[in-house]
């Protein structure tokens, strides 16, 4: 298969935008991405996109133009964006299309997500008794991890403090005010050990990326970033995931570890080569655990990494340079593509106040979502 490049990137600011639907935010992002690439909508050969609660993405053609292009709706939970990107990449790499769109958007109600047990194949009592909340899963996972590997509450707080510090420097972020460590640690508890400032919130936003074949990129003279590899994996046997009333006593694999390993192997590079990473941080603990699950450090080393500031923008491996989900919020359909958007900006040197120094060459992004899905994308300049 031939190489595929991202030649256009657009984003509608995350957060809350009264009076603009989720899909309209997606259309805004598509138009920005087209302008960035110097293209018209009629140039796009095929499209993949989705949202969790703002309707089907293919309805965007009403606003963008009725060009008759094939537009596939993607619904893959938090991995919707990653799955759209993977599909668009395969469409271009196969030679079927020269230009493809991957897009995602959403607009969620305030407060935590509520899930329907039946749609996850779970009995009604699991939801009725108050055990079917995504926030609980993350708290249960990090609680055990902290005790097994010696991660302190302070380190949880440092992750959130960094997120808001980076968000304050990011145009598309929702939370743009720094929050100090004491405030984070002393905020109301949501699910022990995680306080209010350690969780991301459902939000709104839209992202669009335009993919091109190498030939098309050269023809257009576009400023492209190569997709070195993409890997999407669902859960293996005996894993511990969101919404499980029972877990196997046999410890199983993790979808993130599988997706990460496959993405690195396919790209022919290793974790030590990565210059900037966007890791799923639905809460502080997730960022900590995902540092290890993606192969960047050993379990427990995060305590030292955070204390030494290694994941700061000027550190050895900057993580979540735009403030991640914690500062941007989580519009499910757009969230995974936001990470890729941020890496595209960083690798093009367009990060502004949050630009990673030293001309980063390799960008890594990772999403995780219910019921145990992970998508990793590695970009190369």
């Amino acid at each position, binding site marked *: 298969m031939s190489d595929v490049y991202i030649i256009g990137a657009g984003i509608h600011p995350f957060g809350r935008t009264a009076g603009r639907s989720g899909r309209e935010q997606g259309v805004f992002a598509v138009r920005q991405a087209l302008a960035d690439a110097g293209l018209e909508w009629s140039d796009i050969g095929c499209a993949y996109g989705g949202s969790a609660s703002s309707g089907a993405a293919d309805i965007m053609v009403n606003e963008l133009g009725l060009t008759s292009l094939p537009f596939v709706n993607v619904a893959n939970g938090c991995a919707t964006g990653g799955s759209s990107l993977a599909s668009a990449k395969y469409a271009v790499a196969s030679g079927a299309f020269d230009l493809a769109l991957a897009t995602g958007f959403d607009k969620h109600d305030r*407060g*935590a997500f*509520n899930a*329907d*047990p039946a749609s996850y194949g779970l*009995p*009604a*009592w*699991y*939801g*009725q*008794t*108050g*055990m*079917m*909340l995504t926030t*609980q899963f993350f*708290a*249960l*996972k990090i*609680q*055990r991890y902290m*005790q*097994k590997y010696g991660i302190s509450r302070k380190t949880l707080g440092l992750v959130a403090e960094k997120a808001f510090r980076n968000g304050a420097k990011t145009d598309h972020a929702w939370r743009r005010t720094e929050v100090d460590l004491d405030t984070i640690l002393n905020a*109301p*508890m*949501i*699910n*022990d*050990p995680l306080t209010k400032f350690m969780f991301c919130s459902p939000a709104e936003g839209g992202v669009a990326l335009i993919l091109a074949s190498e030939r098309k990129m050269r023809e257009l003279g576009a400023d492209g970033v190569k997709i070195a590899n993409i890997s999407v994996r669902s859960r293996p046997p005996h894993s511990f995931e969101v919404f*499980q*009333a*029972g*877990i*196997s*006593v046999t410890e199983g694999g993790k979808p993130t570890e599988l997706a990460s390993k496959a993405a690195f192997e396919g790209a022919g590079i290793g974790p030590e080569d990565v210059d900037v990473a966007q890791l799923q941080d639905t809460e502080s603990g997730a960022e900590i655990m995902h540092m290890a699950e993606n192969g960047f450090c050993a379990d427990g080393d995060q305590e030292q990494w955070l204390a030494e500031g290694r994941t700061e923008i000027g550190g050895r491996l900057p993580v979540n340079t735009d403030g991640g989900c914690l500062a941007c919020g989580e519009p499910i359909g757009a969230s995974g593509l936001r990470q890729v958007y941020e890496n595209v900006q960083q690798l093009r040197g367009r990060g502004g106040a949050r630009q990673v120094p030293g001309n980063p060459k390799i960008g890594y992004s990772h999403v995780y979502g219910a019921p145990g899905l992970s998508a990793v994308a590695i970009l190369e300049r």
Partner: protein
Amino acid sequence: MSSLTPIAKNLWTEEAEPHLIGGRLPSGEIVFPMPEGDAAAGVEPYPLLRKGTLWSFTSQEFRPKSPYEGPGEGPHDFKPYLLGYIELPGEVIVESLIVDAAIGDLKLGMPMEFVIVPFNAVHTTFAFRPEKQS
């Protein structure tokens, strides 16, 4: 409590010392809950151990949205609760409400025991609590 009915049928056994009902797969693996419908084919209902150890735990400090049917009317009378995973040795790790404990009492690996408790105005549910020293 006698007027309360279980939150679901066949979730635990009806006896003086009830057991949660899991399933035994043809491979021998124990799962919880017992699968339903076509997924139950070949799976034998399996009464789970009443005692285990704490695998992880957390608190729920805000009132969950629907389908939560916990006690009370709304946010004003919501009482935070504890939940976690209990490892039943050699069987399965089950998610459960935790009662008769404060968050500060909980430690990974501590002994826990099964109990049926009132849940809301109409139902009972299952929970685990720190094992009482006899």
